[in-house]
């Protein structure tokens, strides 16, 4: 009996009277929630309308590289500066040492150049200039001879072939001469710059000057002419002093000796 009652199938739960009440509560709570949210939305809207907040400023994005501040550039002591000045870091090639050996008779520093030597060098320069003038005279004679031949050509009534782009002495440099010339000039500015000391108080000036220097075959300055003054005597003095200190210049290439002796080289300080 008891067993039968145990085995009796379970009857489904009967609906009770409280179920409709729970649904009503749920509906009421949902309604309250909706009303509360609407009220909150209304409040926020009112606040936004009547009490606007400050606009949020979004700056433009920037990239930030985390880098250290620069180190202080240490200046070399004067004695080290002088040592570097006297011994430039770039050593000269062995080939260039040979012409220096030839200059053994020349003084190491321009201050030590004896006046007598200068006179000798000036004489040499004059000789060179005389030879150059003779060369020009010879060319003028050739020109007159050519005029005579030209007259003969007119007489022969045959057209003379015009000479082409033939390099004659004294015209534009080409080939090895040009290479030698360019190479020589490239080193020359550094050579002079090394000896140009300008007073600190003229550091920010915009002064400039030009000097034409005439060199002999050994590179010794035989003449210097201030062709453009800066208008400041101290500046000009520093320029002329630098040329004196820089003499002797590197010896010009043999085939260009006459060019630098007759035409000279114009140096712009600083440009």
């Amino acid at each position, binding site marked *: 009996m008891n067993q039968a009652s145990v085995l009796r199938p379970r009857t489904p739960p009967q609906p009770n009277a409280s179920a409709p009440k729970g649904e009503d509560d749920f509906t009421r709570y949902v309604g309250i929630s909706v009303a509360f949210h609407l009220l909150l939305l209304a409040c926020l809207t009112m606040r936004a309308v009547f009490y606007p907040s400050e606009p949020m*400023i979004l700056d433009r994005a920037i990239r930030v590289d985390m*880098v250290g501040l620069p180190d202080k550039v240490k200046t070399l002591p004067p004695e080290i500066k002088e040592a570097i000045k006297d011994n430039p870091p770039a050593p000269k090639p062995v080939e260039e040492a040979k012409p220096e050996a030839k200059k053994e008779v020349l003084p190491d520093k321009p201050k030590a150049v004896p006046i007598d030597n200068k006179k000798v060098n000036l004489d040499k320069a004059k000789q060179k200039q005389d030879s150059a003038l003779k060369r020009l005279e010879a060319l003028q004679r*050739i020109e007159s001879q050519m005029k005579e031949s030209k007259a003969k050509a*007119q007489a022969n009534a045959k057209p003379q072939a015009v000479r082409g782009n033939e390099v004659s002495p004294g015209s534009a440099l080409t080939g090895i001469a040009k290479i030698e010339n360019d190479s020589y000039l490239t080193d020359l500015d550094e050579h002079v710059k090394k000896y140009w000391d300008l007073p600190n108080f003229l550091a920010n*000036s915009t002064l400039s000057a030009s000097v034409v220097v005439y060199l002999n075959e050994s590179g010794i300055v035989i003449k210097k002419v201030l062709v453009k003054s800066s208008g400041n*005597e101290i500046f000009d003095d520093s320029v002329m002093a*630098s040329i004196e200190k820089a003499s002797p210049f590197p010896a010009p290439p043999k085939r260009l000796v006459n*060019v630098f002796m007759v035409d000279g080289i114009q140096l712009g300080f600083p440009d």
Partner: protein
Amino acid sequence: MKNLIASFSIFSLAFFFALPEAKTQQSPVYIKVGEANLKKSLIAMPSFQFQGTPVSAPGFAKTGKELFDTVSNDLSASTYFEFINQGAYLEDPATTGLKPAPGTPGGFSFEKWKPVGAEFLIRAGYRISGGELTVEAYLYFVPQAKQVLAKVYKASVADARTVAHTFANDVVKELTGQRGMFLSKLVTVRSAEKGQKEIFIMDWDGSNVKQVTSHRSITQSPAWSPDGKSIAYTWFAWHSNHKVTNADLFVYELGTGKRFVVSYQKGINSGAAFTPDRKHILLTISSGGNPDIYRITTEGKSPVRLTNGPKGAMNVEPAMSPDGRKIAFSSDRSGRPMIYVMDSDGSNIKRITFAGEYNASPRWSPDGKKIVFAGHEKSHFDIFVMNADGTNMSRLTSAKKPNGKMADNEDPSFSPDGRHVVFVSNRTGINQLYMVSVDGETERRITFDRHEYFRPNWSPFLD
């Protein structure tokens, strides 16, 4: 036809033979030497010669030494000159005149100064009569045996330093064409008793110190007006009505001794900088919560807020460019304090420093091309200078304290000639004033005492 060909041949030959002659007339090869090596000029300056009677001027030796020391210090600080040791002189300046022989009997000889390497020679003498000092001074360019400058100065004996500074200024003006800064002054905060800090003014070389404030409180951030007649500073003043201490901004007139309160809003009113026209003052005010930069008239009216956030960020230490168009300031809006530049109306803000951990105290050079500031890195501050757009930054200072640790170098300010920067350094253990040349090569100590100095500000030209 034959004539035509003949003419052409003649022309061709003439042209051909004209070439060598043209060569003889052409310009020589032109070479640009480039920038020169800069060097200090060797200068000889014998002691100033007393030209009066010692009986009538008992203190003449002291005056002469003061004149000599002041000129010597000025010209040495200029970084233009290196003085020749007086022991190397080949003639006795005491027995030779101030002008050269043979034009002046008994005058000095240029030939005696050339061998010692003198490029410039200063000869000066002075007389004292009835408390009036008369100084006669000459500058000569020795290589050309030429007189460059000749001046006579008259002043009271008490103004001997002013006379010396004026002569040094004249030397610089004559040689460079630029004004010398030797009559300029510094205004700075200096420690006083019981933790108090007062405002002091001194000559650029640290002499002639004068106390400006006696508040027995804390003052900070003094700044010169563009005409050098007024100083703006912040004083932690006691407000008895509210019973609080507040950092208020004042302007003090040096000529009249009058003081005006300019801004006293709750919180900080500090970091003042005059605009070039002297009509306004830029300052930091924190009454709005975070410190921001404002512009206010020198009478304390019409405050205009120039920076506004971002929220939580501080914008402080304004410095106006000499042309009045830009304002440099420091701000931590990017996280760490860095230097920014904006237009004078607060627009167009641009960050210009990105290096280091902390950059502060920007100050413009007088020409407006550079900005100097204090940069913090590896636990200490150093002085840096850069172009106004933030490029080409270089470090000007680096020093160690006696204990081996790196010293702090901060609070920079440009000299009126733009060639030097004054700053505070604790390299001796206490904050003292120093100056460094704008290339960082030459440093000089300005103060030698046991006080602590803060926030020095270099005056404009005062002469």
